């Protein structure tokens, strides 16, 4: 650490305690400081709650008047990241800030808030993040208080390729107004390229907050207690260049899809992760796709393009800086203007939202360029395409077992459509990565997806397809720490012989007792039936597809018994269908075995979510 004298930030500490604290923290390594912050936050937190460390300990109600509250509802970590950065900037600007995740926010305090900024994402078809459900329901419901003294702003995160883009944030924004609150910051939607919107929003939010609080300590220098991204050696903005240790296909040659087990080295990075965390990967776009774009527009890849104060060759913009595997509305709009195409312009009308959504989901920019030819300059193109965003992969390993490595399970996106092959940016980048390639990575913590701290608890892991990834890490971790609780994995995929991810590892885990139960659902495997009439020709029935939720129903009694016994339940994988089907199955199971109606079963599961016993990592 630096040799400079410790200057304590603004605090509510009595002087003698402040002096003690200054002596205590002097010379400590960052890791110790982080630990200390978590320790004191835990002391402040109500017992049993999983309150995140906060910048300043929860203030008494009286201070709400002079304090900015920032609440985030985050599923993949983006909303959290933005909220944390805002909190850090506000602190640095001398404001009193309380940062809290929606699931941990004490709802009764809402009525006393004076200034509230909310960063919240929308999942799938308009759902809130798992642990923001209670918060959203409370505000939307009859019990919500009048908020005539509240000033607020909402940043909504979403993905414009879905029809109900940013619906949760928009509805929240409208509802707060309805409750009498005063909007001090125009409602803002951020698409997948969050930072292009979040940066300017931060500046406006801080200005609005300062104005609202008329902060008396605006000139004080403050060292944020809680580390934010720039403190760590490597972060989203400063990724670590990880060497590839292994890149192995783990589905059989007959499999219809490629799934790869990728092992990366974090040696020397200082990066640490817990099972349940994600690894952020900054991809490079597929070279063939870059060539295709250049070819389609007859542009020179070597020509320098100035944008945003930087000059790079176009090829590099397209390879490392711009999103070219995902289509967004602004690009469609820009291209419609360039192409002067009536049909395309029609799609942008409000009543064609569904059709546009489908276009955005299914096509890449190259498809649009080919379908609706138009002339673009290189500068226009770079300006119209969204900045490249990193992709998050659930980590498939435990550091206790793999040390400085991090393992991923990568489903390679590779399909034929509109006459050409299409690839996903990161999966293609990882799939093609050999020994000579370094992968820019960072850790994206996922506090909502953690093994129980009480290792005697049972865990139920539902992870079809590549959703099985975090559970490989879970089982490794639980084996290594000798957890007494049982581990039950429910895995599904297409075909037993081709797509049983990590089959031999699960078999070993069953043998050595680190996995207690494994149930399988292979949707494309046939079910044999011998017809009575002509028994010499058995019939393969393929209509009857078995999915993980079918296995849940099959073993409903035991599943409920495990839950009733305090088990933690985890779901990882596809958000659009699987997570919903699994949730519906859980509702049925709880309703059936607990003699409740469906609403009561829903609230039983909501309680589990609140307690951190039903966690989802879905995408």
């Amino acid at each position, binding site marked *: 650490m630096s040799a400079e004298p410790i200057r304590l930030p603004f605090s509510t500490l009595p002087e003698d305690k402040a002096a003690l604290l200054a002596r205590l923290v002097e010379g400590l390594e960052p890791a110790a400081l982080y630990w200390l912050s978590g320790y004191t936050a835990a002391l402040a937190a109500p017992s049993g709650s999983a309150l995140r460390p906060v910048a300043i300990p929860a203030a008494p109600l009286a201070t709400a008047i002079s304090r900015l509250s920032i609440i985030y509802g985050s599923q993949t970590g983006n909303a959290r990241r933005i909220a944390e950065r805002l909190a850090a900037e506000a602190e640095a600007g001398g404001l009193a800030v309380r940062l809290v995740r929606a699931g941990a926010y004490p709802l009764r305090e809402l009525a006393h808030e004076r200034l509230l900024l909310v960063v919240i994402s929308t999942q799938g078809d308009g759902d809130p993040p798992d642990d923001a459900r209670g918060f959203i329901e409370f505000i939307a419901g009859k019990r919500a208080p009048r908020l005539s003294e509240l000033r607020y702003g909402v940043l909504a995160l979403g993905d414009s390729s879905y029809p109900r883009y940013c619906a949760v944030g928009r509805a929240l924004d409208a509802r707060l107004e309805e409750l009498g609150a005063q909007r001090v910051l125009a409602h803002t939607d951020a698409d997948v390229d969050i930072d292009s919107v979040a940066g300017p929003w931060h500046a406006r939010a801080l200005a609005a907050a300062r104005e609202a609080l008329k902060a008396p300590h605006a000139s004080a220098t403050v060292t944020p207690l809680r580390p934010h991204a720039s403190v760590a050696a490597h972060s989203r903005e400063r990724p670590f260049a990880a060497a590839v240790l292994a890149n192995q296909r783990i589905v*059989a040659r007959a499999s219809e899809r490629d799934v790869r087990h990728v092992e990366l080295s974090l040696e020397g990075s200082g990066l640490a992760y817990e099972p349940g965390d994600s690894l952020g990967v900054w991809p490079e776009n597929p070279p063939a796709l870059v060539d295709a774009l250049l070819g389609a527009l007859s542009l020179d890849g070597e020509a320098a393009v100035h944008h945003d104060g930087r000059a790079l060759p176009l090829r590099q913009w397209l390879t490392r800086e711009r999103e070219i595997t995902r289509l967004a509305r602004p690009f469609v709009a820009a291209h419609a203007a360039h192409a002067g195409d009536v049909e395309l312009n029609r799609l942008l009308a409000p009543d064609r939202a569904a059709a546009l959504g489908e276009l955005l989901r299914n096509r890449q920019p190259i498809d649009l360029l080919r379908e609706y030819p138009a002339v673009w300059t290189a500068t226009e193109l770079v300006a119209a395409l969204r900045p490249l965003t990193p992709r998050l992969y659930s980590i498939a390993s435990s550091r206790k077992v793999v040390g400085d490595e991090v393992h991923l399970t990568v489903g390679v996106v590779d399909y034929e459509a509109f006459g050409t092959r299409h690839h996903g940016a990161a999966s293609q980048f990882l799939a093609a990565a050999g020994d000579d390639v370094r992968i820019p990575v960072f850790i994206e913590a996922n506090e909502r997806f953690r093994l129980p701290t009480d290792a005697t608890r049972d865990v139920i892991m539902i992870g079809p397809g590549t959703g099985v990834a975090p559970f490989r890490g879970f089982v490794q971790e639980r084996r290594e720490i000798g957890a007494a609780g049982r581990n039950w994995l429910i895995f599904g995929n297409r075909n037993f012989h081709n797509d049983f991810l990590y089959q031999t590892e699960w078999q070993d885990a069953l043998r050595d007792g680190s996995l207690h139960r494994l149930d399988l659902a292979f949707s494309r495997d046939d079910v044999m039936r011998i017809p009575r009439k002509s028994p010499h020709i058995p019939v393969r029935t393929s209509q009857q597809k078995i999915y993980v939720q079918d296995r849940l129903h099959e073993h409903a009694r035991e599943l409920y018994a495990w839950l009733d016994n305090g088990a933690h339940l985890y779901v990882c994988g596809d958000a659009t269908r699987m997570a919903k089907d699994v949730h519906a199955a859980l509702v049925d199971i709880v309703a059936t075995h607990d003699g409740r109606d469906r609403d009561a079963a829903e609230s039983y599961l909501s309680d589990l979510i609140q307690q951190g016993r039903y966690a989802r990592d879905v995408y």
Partner: protein
Amino acid sequence: MSPPLSHLEQIKAASRLLRGTIADGLADPVTGAISEDDNKLLKFHGSYQQDDRDLREERRQQKLEPAYAFMIRARLPGGVVTPAQWLAFDAIAREHANGTLRITTRQTFQWHGVIKHRLKSTIAAINASLVDTIAACGDVNRTVVSSANPVESRAHAAAYAWAVRLSEHLLPKTRAYHEIWLDGEKLPSSGPADQLLPQAGEGKPERPAAAHASLGTEESEPLYGPTYLPRKFKIGLAVPPTNDVDVFAQDLGLIAVLEAGELVGFNVAIGGGMGATHGDPTTYPRLGDVIGFVPPEQLLSVAESVLTTQRDFGNRVERKHARLKYTIDRLGLDGFKAEVERRLGFTLEPARAFHFDHNGDRHGWIEGEDGRWHLTLQIEAGRLADTSGRPWLSGLREIAKIHSGDFRLTCNQNLIVANVAAADRAAIDALVERHALDGYRRGSAIRRHAIACVALPTCGLAMAEAERYLPELLPKIETLLDEHGLADAPILLRLSGCPNGCSRPYLGEIALVGRAPGRYDLRLGADFRGQRLNRPYRENVTETAILEALDPLFARYAAERATDEGFGDFLLRAGVLPVETPRRIPAEVIA
């Protein structure tokens, strides 16, 4: 202190009459395999667990278990199949196996590539076509083979009927088979096995599949006992002058004796067997010894006595010395025969004279003495599949749809479309030609008689390629023969991926026995009648060395052979190979 019984004996003893934990293993969804011990028991039910060895390493890296799949072998005594059964087998092959039917060197069908969760329904489907699979493998009497002789119609019918009867008589009586595969149900049948008697005339007696299970009665194995036999036991019936079953390679070989076209009994040969282990002189192939003559009415008693003598005296400590041939060499032929006769309560009559011309098949159309026609097709390595330019599986399906006779499989992996009326020949010929099944007309003599075992990728014992190598090797040998003007010389070539001998390589005039990928022992000098073993000529050599070794021998054979003299016979007469004294088990093993 007596040495402990082999592991397999312990598995059998603990198996509750072949049940083991097979049913549990089938239900385990986490693996496509069953346990190793259960796999040993599964053989008695007619199935082997195998895996695609081509994929083994690749799948290990993919963190996937080996590509396990099961081979299912039918118990098909005499190798006769009705067209309806053919169509059922064909459907099973395409729907549930790897799309092929494999004619074995024991005159039956194998299905390969049946995955575990289809195993039960596939075996049930085979049973529904009135064929079962019990005792097709394992330490029991295996499927009984009989001469496919298409000429002497009455003799064939009699030999075939006895093959069926022997097979039924010597079946295990455990109900495990029905419990595991057929949910304990008895499938439709025409009546109990004992009503099945040899019938005069042509055609296939209606035979109840798996009718041996007497449900609801006390379960026991009166013939075998709870640990069955020490090792496999094979019975073959030959109708001279054709030794197509290789009667001297059988544990119990029966040579039909005909007088005025009527079957009067059988010469009995015991102690044949092919298997050996590389580098272990205590193991060896052995030809059966003829010990006497038995009239038909005493045949079942003789078979039972030979089998039970082996049951009681066979080696249950060391499996590689457990076959009947070693028991006989240990007890001495006379000693063994005396024990058999003691059990019979009478002495065997002296053997009658017999003569074999050859042990191959007679390809093409042949008219039987009853005026029906029989077409013997040459099926390379016995594999019926649809491959590029050779839609054989489809071709035979089309033939089965119009055929009113039956099909006969031969021990040389070939196929007879049997009992065709003269008027129907043209229609069969058209289908044969359309589906490129007419190779028997064009193929070289060596090609027509060549046989090869399955070997890689499915056989767990294979050390080298066999079936997949045959199409590569044949043209090279053909070229060589052609160079010496020997294109028409019928030379018996047998190819085996390991020394265990499924393709009866020790009876080939030229034989390759696998040692390692691309390396074989070259053996020469058998006759073409199945009455003389070949002997090693080059050990552990590559194809180049094999062809180099054969080249000068072909040259001499072309120049010096006598009229109708076979290649093996010539090599001995010319002194290329020493006249060999038969090997017997060394004294230390007997002790």
